[in-house]
């Protein structure tokens, strides 16, 4: 553990003052085992209180602080300073409207998430029992249960940057989580939604989403599985 001086270059934007975003640089002293979010806290608490960014749990679980760090999407509360170096650039995630500094409008992202029916749909009443499932059936969608909706994947997708009508990787991951759940009964409905022009066929297999995911979900594979389910009617 060592104390290091970090040059933090942040893309700032205040809609009440600025016509367009601009870069501002801050020198902060942190420990090399600190996270990028700690460096951001250092700026906000000791240098410039007007800096705005989202964070909540600060432990890589809530998914609030996805941002572009040194060019790649990541969670500021997961990335350590020693792993990114002492020259750090931070920008808001791309493809969503910037509200202020690093805070973007997440509404379109959540609307797309909601559009794929991301909840269990089952018309039978299990009574006072759990809906049981074999470990094998659970394994089928285990990977996609890990999503924390941080939007790192969707906002790293070059198609999403150009076409805001695309539902995006995160919505498909969350559709996958229920499509392949043996207890769910609405796979057909979700596949119909994803079979539209704005659905899975927009994906060009760029793998940016898989690279960006802080939970290491195999997103491109999940998207391909959904495509295959539509094409071959195989769940």
């Amino acid at each position, binding site marked *: 553990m060592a104390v290091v001086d970090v040059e933090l270059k942040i893309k700032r934007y205040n809609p009440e003052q600025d016509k367009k975003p601009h870069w501002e640089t801050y020198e902060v002293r942190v420990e090399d085992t600190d996270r990028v979010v700690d460096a951001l806290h250092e700026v906000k608490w000791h240098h410039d209180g007007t800096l705005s960014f989202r964070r909540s749990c600060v432990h890589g679980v809530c998914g609030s602080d996805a941002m572009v760090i040194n060019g790649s999407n990541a969670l500021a509360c997961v990335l350590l300073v020693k792993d990114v170096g002492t020259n750090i650039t931070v920008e808001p995630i791309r493809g969503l409207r910037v509200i202020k500094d690093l805070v973007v409008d997440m509404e379109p992202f959540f609307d797309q998430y909601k559009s794929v029916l991301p909840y269990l*749909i089952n*018309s*039978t*009443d299990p*009574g*006072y029992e759990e809906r049981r499932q074999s470990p094998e059936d659970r394994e089928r969608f285990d990977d996609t249960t890990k999503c924390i909706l941080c939007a790192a994947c969707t906002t790293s997708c070059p*198609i999403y940057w*150009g*076409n805001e009508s*695309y539902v995006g990787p995160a919505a498909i991951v969350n559709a996958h989580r229920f499509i392949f759940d043996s207890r*769910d*009964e*609405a*796979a*057909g*409905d979700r*596949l*119909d939604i*994803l*079979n*539209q*022009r704005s*659905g899975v*066929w*927009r994906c*060009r297999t760029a793998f940016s989403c898989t690279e960006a995911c802080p939970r290491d979900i195999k997103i491109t594979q999940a998207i391909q599985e959904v*495509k295959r389910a*539509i*094409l071959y*009617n195989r*769940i």
Partner: protein
Amino acid sequence: MAIRAPEKEPTPPPSLRAQRPRPNFETWSWFFMRISGLVLLFLALIHFTLTHIMHDVVKTNYNFVAHRWHNLGWRIFDWSLLALALAHGLNGLRLIVDDYVRRPGRRAATKATLYMLTGVLFAYGTMVIFTFPRA
């Protein structure tokens, strides 16, 4: 008061899981890109090997083409290459236009130009391949 579990429904409704999403134009468009891409890889490699490696491209002249197209099989091969390359390219550009040309009017105009240009190239290529006089 004893808590009683609700009785289970005697006949549960048919599972929605069995519902098949109806394949639409976008489904087949994606599938076509996969298949045509694979076929094009072989067609293009064969074409490249024959006309650029086995034959000196500088010496490509009327006689070379006439000799090759004496065989109907090669005409069909070249026509397949033309048709698939144009269709594959057109469909790819259609998707890119859908993604990046946002204004509806401009999008329609871009697509119309694209379709017309592809149609002209296809008609012209087809005409050349099948009306070329047999040597």
